[in-house]
């Protein structure tokens, strides 16, 4: 599948034109991970946005009470988009669950620069980040209700 087609199925880029998707695609680097390989580590400085193209990853946090797996993420999901907004450290450790796990990586500074120079792209991406956060919050709420 062509990269543009893959990006078209990613919510973060919903609403972008073909030309805008091509600009995003020009920043992508494909990387393949094997099962159990760490993709991003909690508390490290996040400089990349990850787009899961194939496979599954596990998102887990280390707390004083121990390690807790928050969720598994599959194709089309993104990791690291929060750092576009807050430039904060990684909030969780992300580990590949399958071999191969194929990820498209965008360097955060390059993506931030694109969002700044192309205001429409920036506006749409920021709006989509907000929608995704809303989705994850609702998912977490339902999870808590169902599982107590």
């Amino acid at each position: 599948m062509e990269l543009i087609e893959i990006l078209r199925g990613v919510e973060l880029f919903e609403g972008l034109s073909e030309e805008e998707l091509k600009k995003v695609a020009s920043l992508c680097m494909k990387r393949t991970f094997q099962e159990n390989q760490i993709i991003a580590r909690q508390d490290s400085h996040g400089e990349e946005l990850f787009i899961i193209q194939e496979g599954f990853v596990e998102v887990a946090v280390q707390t004083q009470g121990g390690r807790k797996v928050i969720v598994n993420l599959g194709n089309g999901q993104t990791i690291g988009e929060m750092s576009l907004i807050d430039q904060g450290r990684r909030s969780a450790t992300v580990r590949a669950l399958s071999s191969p796990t194929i990820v498209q990586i965008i360097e955060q500074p390059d993506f931030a620069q694109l969002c700044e120079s192309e205001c429409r792209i920036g506006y749409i991406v920021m709006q989509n980040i907000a929608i995704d956060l809303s989705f994850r919050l609702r998912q977490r709420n339902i999870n808590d209700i169902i599982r107590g």
Partner: protein
Amino acid sequence: MTVYKVSIVVADGSHPGAILNLDHRPIEGETININGNLFLILEVIELMPPRGKFQYLHLTCIPQAS
């Protein structure tokens, strides 16, 4: 092309759940595969209104009996 972004919660807590995109609308009674683990879909609800080509669904599942 409709993309179904689904949140999956496993009712018995045996799995942390998942978020992924599907190319078809899942239905109750169907089996869904999360990284090789099979789960039976008990309930499908709309989590948020559709937006563009995306539909947002929540699935409540239990592990599929072997």
